Structure formats: structure tokens, C-alpha cells
């Protein structure tokens, strides 16, 4: 099965968001909302950080 860096980052963000949202909110609707916010922040933040690092090659 093929894997990609972005795909694995999204999968990682999904797991972490689900666990954090379940830990920090009690109501399922709030969990869903908070989880979606966390997931978006992780993915957008990861891609933004990747682009910032693009300008600072090793």
C-alpha cells in the first residue's frame, strides 16, 4: 500500500484530534466541533510550517 507524507500527517492529525476532543469535551456535539477545529489547525499548521521550512533549506 502506498503512503505519502501528507497522507500520514493527516492520519496522525486525525487520531490526535479525536483523542484530544474526546478528552476535553463531554458533549458529543462539542467533541465533534472541537475535534474538527483541532484537526484543521493541525493540518493547516503542518502545511504552513512545511512551506516556511521550504525557504530555509538544510
Amino acid at each position, binding site marked *: 500500500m502506498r*503512503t505519502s507524507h501528507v497522507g*500520514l500527517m493527516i*492520519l*496522525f492529525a486525525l*487520531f*490526535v484530534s*479525536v*483523542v484530544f476532543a*474526546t*478528552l476535553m469535551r463531554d458533549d*458529543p456535539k462539542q467533541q465533534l466541533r472541537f475535534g474538527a477545529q483541532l484537526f484543521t489547525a493541525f493540518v493547516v499548521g503542518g502545511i504552513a510550517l512545511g512551506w516556511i521550512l521550504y525557504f530555509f533549506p538544510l
Partner: protein
Amino acid sequence: MRATTADREQSATYTYLICLAAWAIPGAGHLLLGRIQKGVTFLVALTLMFLCGLWLQGRLFPVEIRQPLVALAALADMGIGLPFFIARGAGAGAGRVVALTYEYGNAFLIVSGLLNMLVVLDAFDITQGRK
């Protein structure tokens, strides 16, 4: 009415048992405390995350005191509880350093263990009536 010493000891034993169950099987603490939705979510998410780590050819680190970072990674890996020991017993988690996904696998394995430690702390808080 004040709690007697026996009541307090029984309560402490109950708390330790809940924390032990929560560590051994992800989500078991919440399931025992009647938080079914949370318990099932933790069980599914953390177990899948751990299995993904193994699938990505991550390594279950051994406890090597001479290499502090490896020992810390091993402690984090063990945070997932029984799945760690079952995988170890089955010979999984040897890790393949040359695999493209090796570091991703390590991240999945380590973070699943650390997240389960947070879940144990949450179960502890519930038993203490803080949540």
C-alpha cells in the same frame, strides 16, 4: 459524615484499579466508570494508532538505561499498556530503519502511548470527582 480509614483505603484501591485498567487497555478506565462513548472512542482510536505505528514499521524501543532517549521512547511506548507487550511477544515492532515510514511509525507508536497516559490521568480525575 466523615469517611472512615477503611472507606478511604477502599476508595484508594478502587482508584488504583481503575488507573491500572485504563493503562492496560486503552479506554477501559472510562468504560468501567460508565463513560461508554469516551471509552469506546479511546479504545478504537488509540489501538488503531498503535497498529498504524506497527504497520509503518516503527520500532518498539527496548529499555536501555545507557541511552536515555531510547529509554524515554520505551517508556512512552509502554504507555499504551497490554498492546505493547502483546506486540512485543508476537515479535512485532522490530522497526526497519531504512523504511521510508520508520520515523512516522515511531511517532505513531510513541504518541499513542503518551495519549493513553493522558487518558489514564483523565480516568484518575473522574474517580477523584474532579470531572
